[in-house]
């Protein structure tokens, strides 16, 4: 097959491209330039592109750079900022996968005559019940199936995830054995377009949204403190609330941006028997029975039934999920669907 391998310059996607070439596919490497702004995570830096290019050189692959900066800005960064403005906590990696890697890049790959797009995600792609499914990667600690829940059958039919059956250690071993220059390169961290040295997420959001202070109140309405930027406050958060020392930890249980009010409560106040969701989608057919539901990238799933009208009914009460976060449905290791917390 003719495969377009997305190569970030990191070790996972490098090994993914190498494995496909070893398997006899005609592989062309591509690095996406997504972000021209400030970043200290190494994302889209010239040195990352160089790493990718030098790995491609070593593997004997042609390598291209596609500038998807405008699309990334419109489909990932702007919605990320807009969502925070209305009190949501979005997952930009999922939006990037949805709109950039598995939409724009995939459409371009098809137009350029490729049969498939490959990435270095730690997840497996399998056929199950006549369709395709994403299965968790072998390495629990690195599993990225959560950020791939949005894939539809058409996309999965044109994708390859070559390293999902390897642990991270095995990936690094392969990279070292191949003599790849990035075999010991650190994993990328956090949101790729946000620079930690410039105040991190709060600094990034404040520069774009301004800072709206908010009052922090108790569940009975007692004023406790103030925070500088309400847009950066998330359900479940317990640090950075200027509460001083409290007897027991307080957690954000509600954020009302319009009213400029953050409500904090005890840990128990976070727990809820149901979770409202929007945008439910299924990998194939909707599932009516019990599913395992995971609400963060490396979280522990809990058992629930999905009410198709837009609600997750937990078997045992679970912590409230910050609105905007992905809620992903599994059966065993298989991703069967997902939604977004309301």
């Amino acid at each position, binding site marked *: 097959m003719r495969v377009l391998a997305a190569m970030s310059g990191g070790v996972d996607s490098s090994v993914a491209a190498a494995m496909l070439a070893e398997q006899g596919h005609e592989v062309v490497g591509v*690095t996406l*330039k997504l972000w021209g702004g400030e970043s200290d995570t190494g994302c*889209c830096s*010239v040195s990352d*592109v160089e790493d990718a*290019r030098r790995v491609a050189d070593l593997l004997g692959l042609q390598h*291209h*750079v*596609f*500038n998807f*900066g*405008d699309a990334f800005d419109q489909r990932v960064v702007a919605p990320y900022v807009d969502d925070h403005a209305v009190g949501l906590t979005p997952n930009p990696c999922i939006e990037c996968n949805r709109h950039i890697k598995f939409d*724009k890049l995939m*459409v*371009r*790959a*098809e*137009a*350029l*005559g490729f049969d498939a797009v490959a990435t270095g995600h730690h997840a497996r792609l399998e056929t199950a019940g006549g369709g395709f499914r994403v299965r968790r990667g072998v390495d629990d600690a690195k599993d990225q199936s959560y950020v791939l829940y949005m894939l539809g059958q058409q996309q999965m039919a044109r994708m390859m995830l070559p390293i999902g059956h390897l642990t991270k250690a095995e990936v690094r071993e392969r990279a070292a054995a191949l003599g790849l220059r990035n075999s010991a390169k650190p994993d990328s961290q956090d949101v790729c377009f946000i620079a930690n040295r410039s105040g991190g997420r709060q600094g990034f959001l404040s520069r774009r949204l301004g800072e709206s202070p908010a009052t922090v109140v108790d569940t009975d309405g007692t004023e406790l403190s103030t925070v500088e930027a309400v847009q950066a406050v998330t359900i479940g958060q317990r640090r950075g609330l200027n509460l001083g020392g409290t007897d027991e930890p307080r957690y954000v249980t509600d954020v009302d941006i319009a009213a400029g009010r953050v409500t904090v409560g005890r840990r128990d106040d976070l727990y809820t028997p149901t979770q409202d969701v929007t945008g439910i989608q299924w990998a194939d057919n909707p599932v009516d029975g019990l599913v395992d539901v995971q609400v963060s990238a490396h979280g522990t799933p809990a058992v629930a039934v999905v009410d198709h009208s837009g609600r997750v009914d937990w078997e045992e009460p679970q912590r409230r999920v910050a609105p905007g976060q992905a809620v992903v449905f599994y059966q065993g290791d298989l991703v069967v669907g997902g939604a977004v917390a309301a």
Partner: protein
Amino acid sequence: MASEAIAYLDNAASTPLCSEAVEAMAPLHRELYANPTGAHRMARDTRRQIDDARDVMAEALGSEPGEIVFTGGGTEGDNLAVVGRHMRVGGVTVCSAIEHHAVLEPVEHLGGRVVAVDAVGVIDLDGLAEALDESVTVVSVMLANNETGMVQPLSQVAELVRSLAPNAVLHTDAVQAFPWLDVASLAAGADLISVSAHKFGGPKGVGATVVRDGVELSPLLLGGGQERGLRSGTHNAAGIAGMAAAAEVVLKTRAEQVVRLAGLRDRLVDGVLGAVEGTVETGRRSGKVAGSAHLCFEGIESEALLFLLEDAGVYASAASSCSSGAQDPSHVLAAMGYDRMLAGGSLRLSLGYETADADIDRALAVIPDAVARLRAYGKG
């Protein structure tokens, strides 16, 4: 899918070394390898090569030999003119909005003034007049643009600078113009003229800048004081000899090459315009250098088009490439008022002295299908 034969239509990016340059450079690698500022005979013989080259470049650029400064290429020449002038006398820098980044970045870095262009990519002379006053110390306007190929009205620019900015010197980046235009006469009104060897059949990493007698300029590199103190560093003797040999070829053959290649260029552009609907030719054909074809295709993205063209053996480019190798949006088309979507579908096909009929045939056979394919898939 890559084919054996290649149609190389990216001569505005770089050109093959002409055989005359190859020959001229050869003795300087293994025979005349002395440092040309040395005291012995081999040094003097090497120096002679540089002085001969200086005579050639002076003739080519319309200057005295003593006004030629050998540089490391176009970017250095542009920086020497703008930054060197500002370092020496301070004041305000001015350039057009369509300059190469090697001029634009220094001017913006120095807080200078950027003059708009019109819809066909020619500097707005009224805008220039407004930007000029006694505080201006250097004005830089290119002779021909690297993306559109549009020739700028340099003599009118020079007149305005003389009358409105008495303290300014005029620099012209003639890098793209030299293969096509009589720079010596068209840039006669400029105080500083920069060219780059690899754009006209010479080697990479060498160029020349005319610094007319009396122009006050600070060097960017300090050291041994070569090139009238304006460019310290051991001479790139082989490169300089290669550049001069290539310049001689240009002087000898330019007139006939311009006629031949303008014909090929017209066949190429007219062929594409006739075969592909929704194609916009940038600028104005009659105002372009002969080797330049620049088009925008509605509804596609350049990167994808370049990929398909490469697959089919046609090498071209879009806007300028950034350091990562990605295609950046064109500041030239933006300055001409193109919307970002249309500018995003630009294609520059630049012909050179070695371009042949077969290259045009191949491009014409490939481009319409590639554009049609991309349009069928929507914006990939």
